[in-house]
């Protein structure tokens, strides 16, 4: 099978099973593109995740584009991105054209109730896999715990603080630590 076809089909499959936003997709990419296919490394995926979160737009697109590019340049980037989007594009067209009461269909609502539980588990698992690959001693762990606690409180109290604020804050703190370290030398 040609690499372009492989990219297309793999990302179409990922697109078809990505529910509930970008974080759940990380788990699918880890499983398929890193562990099964070996297309990118855990380190690269970490870089893509950080860049994706710090730039506008859906994380899923950043991931597909980058993995595609690494395999087959611009053509790969386009094919992987189109593959990712195509299933949901067709499903939405179908729904908007033929189903006025999509959300009232009982079995779909029940299936989605179940899927929501799986999505929570997958996102949690994505983080666990990243934690296992973490390097660099105590400091990163402190960053991680602070961010987790802040994000959890933001969620619980529905504060209007975006995750991007936490990312910026940790970038600033991390840069300061680095600069202080250089000063001492």
């Amino acid at each position, binding site marked *: 099978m040609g690499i372009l076809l492989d990219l297309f089909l793999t990302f179409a499959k990922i697109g078809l*099973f*990505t529910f509930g*936003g970008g974080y759940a997709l990380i788990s699918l990419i880890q*499983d398929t593109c890193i562990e099964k296919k070996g297309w990118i490394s855990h380190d690269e995926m*970490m*870089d893509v995740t950080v*860049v*994706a979160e*710090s*730039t*506008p*737009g*859906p994380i899923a*697109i*950043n991931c597909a*584009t*980058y993995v595609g*590019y690494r395999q087959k340049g611009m053509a790969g*980037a386009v094919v992987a991105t189109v593959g990712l989007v195509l299933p*949901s*594009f067709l*499903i*939405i*067209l179908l*729904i*908007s054209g033929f189903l006025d009461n999509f959300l009232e269909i009982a079995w779909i*609502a*029940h*299936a*989605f*109730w*179940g*899927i929501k*539980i*799986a*999505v*929570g*588990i*997958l*996102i*949690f698992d*994505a*983080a*666990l896999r990243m934690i296992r690959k*973490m390097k660099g001693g105590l400091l*990163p762990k402190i960053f*991680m715990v*602070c*961010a987790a606690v*802040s*994000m959890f409180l933001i*969620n*619980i109290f529905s504060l209007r603080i*975006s*995750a*991007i604020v936490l*990312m910026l804050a*940790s*970038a*600033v703190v991390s840069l300061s630590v680095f600069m202080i370290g250089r000063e001492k030398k």
Partner: protein
Amino acid sequence: MIYLDLFIGFLQVGLFAFGGAYGAIPLIREVVLSYGWIGDEMLTYMIAVSESTPGPIMINLATYVGSSQAGIPGALIATTSVILPSFVFILVIMVALKKVFQSIWVQAALRGMKPCIIGIILATGAYMILEHCFFNLSDLSVDLTATIMTVALGAIYFGSRKILKKGISPIGLIGISAIAGIVVYAL
């Protein structure tokens, strides 16, 4: 002209939507309402549908609004324009600006940002699981069905890795959970 409006409107969404789909909803609402494409109520319904169908919410919403305004060509234009900024950004930053990306300063900032994003993802996952197990997080009333199912699915997913060589894939878990959801309600 509707095609140009859709292109510019969703390009704005793609360019300025930071922090995932939920963070982007106010921006999407502003764009969609200012062009008068659909009303607030219809938008709320479309967001709910976009959440319940596979694929990134922002992209589903663009496809939905585009097709409601100008059929399949409209859907194509809206979807392409919402994707375009992310497509360009990731390639520019990680491929064209590779030298800058690997400089000691950027790497120093990234050393803080990487664990931070891990923490954010961890908290989001944990919160979603808890939110699902309790009807209401403030008075801690437990949804027993959801809790049992969460524990069961978690045990199947993580347990299968210990027993089987490869374990159940994320896609497998999605499939099992959808069927379980239907079965639980049918009982």
